[in-house]
């Protein structure tokens, strides 16, 4: 080797490395870098820290934990998104009259992918319903496991949305607006609350193995808010987050050595720029990345879970293994302080998700069969660890389905945003209750009356669901706002929206 080795024992080697490690281990949301910031200089010359916010917070982490408006019931949210729109009359909204009408053409107003209709052929529910729990809730045979938790669940049977079309309905369920460009619920939660774990993203999305939902990243976009608040895709296997793992030809040791050198150079650069908090923040962000690299993989490593737990989630069963794994990860993420976890059941198009346009039984047996046990396991597991008290679990899709057939033949149902079922559990939600009703066909919301985000129409609008989520997290949904485009924008929109008080414990 040539002369370069002469530098091997130069001043750099072995001198700064340990010191940097020591500093890197310190907290980065506080004053870890104050030593680097030439603060003495400013103190000597009478510049009081705190005046301009420039020198007192080297890394003003926009995700630093923040208190909500009032004492929260829930600290985290797990949104189990049944993409495609599960049928309410085949799952949780028991309509005994519908069985007898099977095959009959009746007058009923519907609006879906196939436009507006005034009559249609009834498709009777394809599963039997049984009563469960102390509350005696009717649940279909699609969900024998979830059914055992009805006393912890609040069912909302008269959800309504503004669109029966996937694209805009997905946007609304995730962001409150049918227009593209608004921040998602998870973004609002992180904007409002920040994160208590800086090693993990605050808003995590886990996709179905068949692919993302339509409109892709728009479903976890932070819209007009900074990218800081957008959802991060988390993979349940391998390296969980994009660019989290260094490439194979950069061993961790080498990366650390490089980071130390980078830090030394950046520190030198900071001299004569000492009051620039952004430069200091960027130095800190590399150490934070290092810590994420170290700690985030642990969050998705199931090695420390017992066999009993794995069996509970159905990890040994190929049908339930994937969703079970993601449900178990959701619990682990919530344990680690992640604020908002969203799991998609179903992805891509058509029958890869709950969008049962042609054959109800084939579609719903498949998707319910993949998810029933894992969802029930999640509730069991959260409950026994005490986490359910502070974790709000939401189940539902972007809309429901019609009681009538979509085509001349077959049992497929078209989309329905006039009335559908969602449920919530944990996080200060009252168990064993059912609120709101659809008509006897399950085609449209009939109660409660107007005043739930729905203008002059009955039912609970998506906005009232969002208001409930924010309320449980300690926010007045009508006050959590973000100034953009000349307006104080709110997740729930301009008009005052109440949380669904009937489901609050």
């Amino acid at each position, binding site marked *: 080797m040539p002369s370069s080795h002469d530098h091997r024992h130069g001043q750099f080697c072995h001198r700064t490395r340990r010191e940097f490690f020591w500093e890197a281990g310190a907290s980065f949301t506080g004053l870890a870098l104050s030593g680097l910031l030439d603060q003495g200089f400013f103190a000597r010359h009478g510049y009081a820290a705190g005046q301009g916010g420039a020198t007192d917070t080297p890394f003003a982490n*926009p995700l630093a934990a923040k208190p909500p408006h009032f004492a929260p019931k829930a600290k985290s949210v797990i949104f189990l998104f049944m993409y495609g729109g599960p049928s309410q009359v085949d799952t949780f909204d028991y309509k005994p009259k519908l069985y007898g009408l099977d095959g009959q053409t009746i007058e009923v107003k519907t609006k879906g992918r196939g436009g507006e209709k005034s009559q249609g052929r009834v498709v009777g529910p394809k599963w039997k319903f049984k009563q469960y729990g102390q509350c005696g809730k009717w649940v279909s045979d699609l969900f024998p496991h979830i059914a055992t938790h009805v006393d912890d669940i609040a069912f909302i049977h008269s959800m309504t949305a503004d669109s029966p079309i996937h694209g*805009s309905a997905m946007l609304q369920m995730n962001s409150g607006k049918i227009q593209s460009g608004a921040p998602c619920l998870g973004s609002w939660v992180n904007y409002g609350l920040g994160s208590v774990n800086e090693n993990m993203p605050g808003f995590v999305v886990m996709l179905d193995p068949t692919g993302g939902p339509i409109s*892709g990243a728009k479903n976890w976009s932070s819209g007009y808010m900074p990218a800081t608040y957008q959802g991060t895709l988390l993979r349940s296997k391998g390296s969980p987050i994009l660019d989290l793992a260094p*490439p194979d030809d950069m061993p961790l040791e080498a990366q650390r050595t490089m980071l130390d050198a980078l830090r030394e*150079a950046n520190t030198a650069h900071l001299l004569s720029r000492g009051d620039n908090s952004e430069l200091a923040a960027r130095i800190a962000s590399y150490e934070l990345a290092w*810590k994420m690299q170290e700690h985030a993989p642990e969050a998705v490593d199931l090695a420390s879970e017992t066999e009993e737990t794995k069996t509970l989630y159905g990890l040994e069963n190929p049908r339930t293994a994937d969703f079970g794994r993601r449900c178990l990860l959701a619990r682990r993420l919530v344990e680690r302080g992640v604020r908002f976890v969203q799991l998609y059941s179903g992805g*891509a198009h058509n029958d890869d998700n709950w969008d049962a346009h042609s054959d109800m039984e084939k579609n719903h047996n498949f998707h319910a069969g993949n998810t029933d046990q894992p969802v029930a396991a999640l509730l069991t597991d959260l409950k026994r660890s005490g986490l359910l008290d502070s974790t709000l679990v939401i189940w539902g899709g972007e809309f429901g389905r019609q009681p009538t057939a979509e085509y001349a033949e077959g049992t497929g149902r078209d989309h329905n945003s006039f009335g559908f079922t969602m449920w919530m559990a944990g996080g200060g939600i009252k168990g064993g209750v059912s609120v709101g009703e659809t008509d006897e066909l399950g085609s449209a919301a009939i109660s409660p009356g107007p005043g739930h985000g729905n203008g002059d129409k009955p039912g609970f609008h998506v906005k009232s669901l969002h208001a409930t989520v924010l309320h449980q997290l300690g926010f007045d949904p009508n006050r959590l706002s973000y100034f953009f485009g000349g307006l104080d924008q709110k997740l729930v929109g301009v008009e005052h929206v109440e949380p669904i008080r009937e489901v609050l414990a």
Partner: protein
Amino acid sequence: MFRENFCLCRGLWTLTLAVVGSGILLSPAAFAEPVDFSRDIQPLFAKRCFSCHGPDTQEAGLRLDQIAGATAALDSGSRAIVPGKTAESEILARITSSDPNTQMPPEGPRLTAAQVDAITRWVDEGAEWKEHWAFRPLTRPVVPAAADAGGDAANPIDAFILAGLAQRGLSAPPQADKTALIRRATYGITGLPPTEQEVRDFLADDSAAAWEKVVDRLLASPRYGEQWGRHWLDLVRYADTNSFERDGNKPHAWRYRDYVIRSLNDDKPYDQFVIEQLAGDELPEPTNDAFIATGYYRLGVWDDEPADREQFRYDWLDDIVATTGQVFLGLTVNCARCHDHKIDPIPQRDYYSMLSFFDNITPMGNGGDQIERPLFRDDADRQAYEEKVADLNRRRNEAQRAVNEIEKKFRDSWESPNQADAVGGDLDDLTFRFYRDSWKSLPVFDELKAEDTGSVLSQLFDIAVAPSLRPDNFGYVFTGFLKVPMDGDYTFSLDSDDGSRLTIDGSVVAEYDGIHGEGKPKSATLRLQAGRLPIRLDYFQGQHGKGLTVAWSGPGFGARTLSALQSRRKAAGKDSDLKKAIAADGERILGTDGKKHYDEKVKVLEKLKKEEVPVDKGLVVTERGPTPADTFVFYRGNPHAEKKPENKVSPAFLSILKAKEPVIPTPAADAKTSGRRTALARWLVSSDNPLPARVMANRIWQHHFGRGIVRSTSNFGMMGDPPTHPELLDWLATELIAGNWRLKSLHKLILLSQAYRAAATYKEEAFAHAEALKVDPLNDSFWRFDMRRLSAEELRDSIHVASGAFSPKMFGPGVYPTIPKEVMAGQSKPGAGWGDSSSEEQARRSVYAFVKRSLITPILADFDLADTDTSCPVRFTTTQPTQALGMLNGEFLHRQARVFAERVRREAGGPDAADVPAQVRRALEIALVRPATDAEVERGVALVDRLDDADGVSPSRAMELFCLMVLNLNEFAYLD
């Protein structure tokens, strides 16, 4: 920097990002100065009082946005403000009260002592009320005298800046060193680093004009248009796709992007730039550029499958009103959609009056002529194109006539038991578009997105042809050609359940619209010439019964069906019956030679049908015709609200700006547009309108100094930030107009100022620096130049420049940077709508990267690319660990670090290829565009050694990792 003043939201919720200087705007009254109504009082009233006591709502009878309301007797009998009399002014009692029942504001934090003091002093001093600064007429302010400016100020900008500094007791800032300055300006003007040669030349040039030479060179660089074009594209929310479920491509959108770049490079006057974008198509002799510019209206998001079409149309128009209001006027007109503006004096009626300028615009629909237009270099080019098209049509007609003639002969002599069923030979190249929705009458299908499209092989109007057919609520448009056998009179009959319309050669022949059953056919007779005539049939089905029967008769033949027979539907094969019949019986009836002759003629025709006359197209605006439908004020913004006559509005400019009524000449009956947009565009840049010049001058300042003189660069309303230097802003605005709206002269003036050349860092002046920081922590007075991070594009482009991979190629369709498959996995069809570009293409400037709304290139998204869906006046600068992860571990960085290391090895020269110190030095020089110090080289070499020695990395890989480290340096990513 923050976008808008988003941390000024009411209530408790403030967001602190790591920003240069600070993330929080503090009360400006940190130093004793006379109270300034515009700066200290009005913004405070707007933020804390107007929502209950403003233009839209006057609780307790109090209106605080105008003097009359503020001093009037209230419902209670008292007066909020009695000028000069603090004791009688109820407002002071309320803002200082500790009684929760009476204190104001009732929600959110109490007013600070400084704010209460300012209001008290202002009332005491007589409560002088000035019109909001932004609405005042634009007049040219007097440049402060050198004495007031506290020094020599050859450049008027410095006179204003120095006067401001002197007011705060601050002195003129030290000047940046030449290396920092040329790097700052080169990035500022071109978005790229200077070359090493450019730096050397500047350092070596001791002449007085050295700096001016650099500025002139930079402003003449074609890179200027790319950098400043990107700023404009942020404002108009440029993207190549529509968002929503399909996120489909906008055809030719890139030509608009290129138009912007070219316009800036050509130093097109800003008034012309505005007029072209808003109404280029209505200019007396529109150029291609003028048409392409109107692509402005097509850039926003577009839901091709809205749940409620009427609602979506007005959401879409709202997006245009919002963007136009914010971009050109700096006003959030959009806040007056549902009610009068809560803060600014913009009544709801003004919103709809502004909307009416756009209400006649066609929607995106299916593309085609509605949004696309052929482009010609000149008249000769157009004529040549039109002649070619005419010639091609003539040849096609000729060939068709030859075919028709033989087919007629065949039909006349053909006897077959199945003849009555031998249908489908009269139409050619028939295609269908299938739609689904519920209608009561035929919609304008061209404005809707088809669910399904395809060919109709039977060559018959067949309403069962679509694969995604459903029983109810659907529609079709069939288009193709009618084969007219000879000149003569032809009779058409049309019957349908539900509505239908038959159009031949662009004219409606028969229409049978609405919901009804079959049985009362419409018919019409017309004279046609032999050949191929375009034919179109529109049809819709509601619920219950359905059907479509179309037939024609003519010289020598009785009624022949053009539509599929109910009885035959299932048997409809791959060819028309006629074609099958000729195949079977052609030789018998026409003879061997006759059949051969026929086949040849068919072949000729088929070949001609494939022939195309190539032409470039642009994405353009079109209108529904010369006479727009009426526009109404919608109660609570609901487009389904009743359209009451008293709510009808006509085009009008914002009343607050006291403009004259728009003059819109009545368009000719055959005009394609209403002329309304021209009226709007001309008003925007007229001398009556003080806003556009202020807004644009401020944007130019913003992109040089990192913030506008008005920080909220798209909100000059009362909720916006007041200007830190109002006179300077007005002076720059008048300068812009006086300079014939040319931007480059304004750039030059700014770049030549001392203010622009101020140092960002401190060295021996550290004491003065600390003092100034104490007096003016937010740098309101420009006592230094604020450092800034490179934008997402600048960072990505700089990495390419450093690695040597950079390609300067300009213009053309969007480039597809490689997107990691983990990111693609978020799509419902991974990889859909994304192309492959060669690594050379990918190394072009990021402004040429394809902008797919639902799939943003990760490194650009990480570093705060503008949101694609709404106008973005100021980008965020976030600092997050995910950025560091991408920069440390990402595929793109590692690839570029390798290319960079190869370059360094190549260029380090010297006899010894593995001369590590030389390579380290070279890498630092290239990336930082300055000489490396010996100490830096020593540290770099130590790093390479350690990687290679202790961490088990190969020597060549160690150099790559060193290069990676260099690309991660703060010095690389930040400008002094």
